[in-house]
């Protein structure tokens, strides 16, 4: 137990985090990009077309990973909010500050790809059903996390408020997930669930899994890189950051 607590404590130190994460970013970028290239080529070129939707179902290979990651990034922000409120761990707030814009972009990507998918299949790009509406709310929650921080000048107050907002908004995540079961929606229910076999044929399912895992890894790299920038910004007055900037100027 002692060692886990030790790691937790050291990760709380911005300097330790900055020095230890440099190689991780590179590795995650390489792994994630590879996964996305393989998954996208497999899904967009090699996988067979759908029986009814033809090629338009391939938008799924962009839509599903980005929507899933958007939800997961929000969930991670809420967890970080939890850690910040209870333990006041600064790195948890750094995580929210770095992840919120990434989550917003992922949500935008899932909305945009959903609209593109809806137009040829549903016959409309947008409908105000519970799934689409709750994902739009998710986008506004990410905007809220970004805007609230900028609205409060004192960093510790801002961090606390953002953490509470992240916690309140997590209620939206189960609503997004179960909207297609609790209410009548135009959006179809989930194809991949814990309880049942996936309703996607295997040759179409694999590229989806590869792309999703690839995006997980890539987004982890993006957030980590953004956290490093955030750490440098916040610690710019300290001696160790000055050492870094000095060595860069040389």
């Amino acid at each position, binding site marked *: 137990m002692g060692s886990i607590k030790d790691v937790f404590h050291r990760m709380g130190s911005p300097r330790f985090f900055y020095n230890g994460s440099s190689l991780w970013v590179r590795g995650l970028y390489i792994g994630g990009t590879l996964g996305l290239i393989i998954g996208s080529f497999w899904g967009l070129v090699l996988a*067979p*077309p*759908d*029986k*009814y*939707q033809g090629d338009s*179902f391939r938008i*799924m290979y962009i839509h599903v990973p980005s929507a899933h990651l958007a939800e997961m990034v929000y969930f991670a922000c809420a967890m970080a909010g*939890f850690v910040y*409120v*209870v*333990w006041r761990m600064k790195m948890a707030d750094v995580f929210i500050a770095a992840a919120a814009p990434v989550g917003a972009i992922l949500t935008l990507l899932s909305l945009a790809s959903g609209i593109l998918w809806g137009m*040829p*299949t*549903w*016959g*409309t790009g947008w*409908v*105000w*059903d*519970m799934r689409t509406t709750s994902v739009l709310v998710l986008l506004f929650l990410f905007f809220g996390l970004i805007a609230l921080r900028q609205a409060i000048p004192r960093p510790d107050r801002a961090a606390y408020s953002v953490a*509470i907002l992240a*916690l*309140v908004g*997590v*209620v*939206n995540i189960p*609503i997004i997930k179960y909207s297609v079961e*609790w*209410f*009548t*929606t*135009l959006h*179809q*229910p*989930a*194809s991949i669930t814990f309880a049942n076999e996936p*309703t*996607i*044929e295997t*040759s*179409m399912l694999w590229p989806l899994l590869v792309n999703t895992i690839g995006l997980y890894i890539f987004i982890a790299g993006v957030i980590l890189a953004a956290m490093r920038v955030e750490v440098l910004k916040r610690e710019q007055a300290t001696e160790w950051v000055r050492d870094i900037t000095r060595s860069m100027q040389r």
Partner: protein
Amino acid sequence: MPPLRRQRLAVVLFVLFGSALTIGVVLFALQENIDLFYEPQKIVGGEAPIAKRIRAGGMVEKGSLDYESQGLGVSFVLSDLRGSRFEVRYKGLLPGLFREGQGVLVVGQLDASRVFYAKEVLAKHDENYMPPELVDMGPES
């Protein structure tokens, strides 16, 4: 856990529980209104308002699709496969995925004899994906 952290933990749990309860009650109260469309049972059972713009959904009954001899007029029957069914009349282009056995959503008005006059037809594609060569092996066909 030190008292201060225990107190903060209580705050977190209170916030989580409070917001979940609030949203839960709101969703429960609004359930009817959050549903995107009326199911066939509610159309037949008289719960859907007449001569008001509403949305209804169901499966296009096999063999019910009927094109008018001239123009774009079409009629079909939507059912829930549990015995509730109603007729839809529509004039216009149908979405590419429209076919018999497909779930669709219609936007329009009910008349007094419970015939639905649609202004818009949307296809509700399902969560099953399979390549075309497997079609003949599936139980559906």
